[in-house]
């Protein structure tokens, strides 16, 4: 597939986290998209998606906020692009409910005073890269060689489950991240924990309870030679990163956990100021300098 320069425009939903703690995810994504001819058009009146899809059958109220976002995105176009896995999950599942469950759709529509029937297509930016840009074209756009970097993909839960509603990838053997990393020229490190849960919001439980599952994930990647882990979820990034607190500096070096868009921006040779690596526990700076893919000391 050839790259249709400047021809692609999408309504885009950033979500709260990308405007605050995960700013680098957004800046790297928007800049990379631009370099590939994709214009991510941030919606004007988006609302928080709710961060977790409500699992209560008797209560449709938590669907109101994401539904409002969906209804207004529909006015901008037929597709809505997301970056954060959680936003993708919540918006796509909400959209599914509104499309298939007439009873709940009527309740929610009454609240938001709209007549929205779920006829939007909620997409993840990875899907845009795969289907609209094309991984072959992406490979041809790579400016910085990442051949020296061994990277483990980490999907977590929210991109993959429930598969019958999301249909994102093979839920037990996904490969979109691998294909993406290959297109960038990285060495892909496959590992069994790439679809296991990191512990998610259990991070808030006192006593560091989510770090157990997260450590298993990091160890699964590290022991197979991964130098970095990529994700598309700020909570996964946080959990995997925090779980390694205190680990680096000892005999095992920490494995930096970065957003796939940050790696994309590096590969596309974009200025380092779009990367936004601040706030990481395991700083990716030393690794990236070491393999020679970034130069500036400004990267913490």
């Amino acid at each position, binding site marked *: 597939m050839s790259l249709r320069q400047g021809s692609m425009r999408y309504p885009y939903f950033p979500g709260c986290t990308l405007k605050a703690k995960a700013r680098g995810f957004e800046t790297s994504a928007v800049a990379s998209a631009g370099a590939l001819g994709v214009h991510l058009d941030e919606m004007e009146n988006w609302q928080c998606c709710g961060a977790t899809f409500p*699992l209560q059958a*008797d209560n449709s109220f938590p669907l109101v906020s994401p539904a409002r976002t969906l209804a207004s995105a529909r006015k901008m176009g037929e597709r809505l692009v997301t970056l954060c896995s959680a936003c993708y999950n919540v918006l796509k599942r909400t959209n599914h409910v509104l499309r298939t469950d007439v009873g709940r759709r009527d309740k929610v529509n009454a609240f938001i005073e709209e007549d929205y029937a779920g006829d939007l297509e909620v997409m993840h930016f990875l899907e845009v890269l795969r289907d609209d840009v094309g991984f072959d074209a992406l490979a041809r756009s790579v400016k910085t060689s990442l051949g020296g970097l061994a990277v483990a993909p980490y999907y977590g839960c929210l991109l993959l489950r429930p598969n019958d509603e999301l249909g994102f990838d093979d839920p037990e053997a996904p490969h979109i991240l691998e294909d993406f990393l290959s297109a960038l020229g990285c060495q892909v490190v496959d590992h069994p924990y790439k679809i296991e*849960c990191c512990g998610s919001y*259990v991070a808030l439980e006192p006593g560091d309870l989510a770090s157990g599952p997260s450590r298993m994930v990091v160890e699964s990647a590290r022991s197979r030679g991964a130098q970095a882990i990529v994700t598309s979820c700020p909570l996964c990034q946080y959990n995997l990163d925090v779980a390694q607190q205190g680990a680096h500096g000892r005999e095992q070096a920490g494995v930096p956990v970065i957003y796939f868009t940050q790696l994309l921006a590096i590969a596309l040779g974009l200025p380092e100021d779009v990367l936004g690596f601040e706030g990481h526990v395991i700083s990716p700076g030393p690794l990236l300098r070491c393999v020679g893919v970034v130069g500036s000391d400004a990267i913490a």
Partner: protein
Amino acid sequence: MRLARDVVRGEEERKLRDISGEEVRSCYQCGKCSAGCAMTSMMDLLPHQVIRLVQLGQVEEALASRTIWLCASCLACSARCPRGVSLPNVMESLRVTMLRPGGRHIDPARLPADVLENAPEQALVAGLRKYS
């Protein structure tokens, strides 16, 4: 444990069914959910044991379990359940049963400062919706 009609299909169990939209009696206790759950090492009851308690109408005991707060709604269990049980919905119904009358599992005001400062917004929003 004394079993009777009004225990097995009691009021408590009916409420859970309304909240979760799930019929737990489909579960045949194969244990596959527990086998794949990432959080079990911290749990006091395995996920399938929680389901069993609900099947037996022992809702109080299920509500007292730490497991319901440690479930991360990751859906690994329901994705693989051979009987199509949405176990995370059942967990949610148990949590909600505790929270709706005004209960709180975690008080946002008492979260440690470093968590408040560093955790992504997404974690705070999701956690507070699950825990309070």
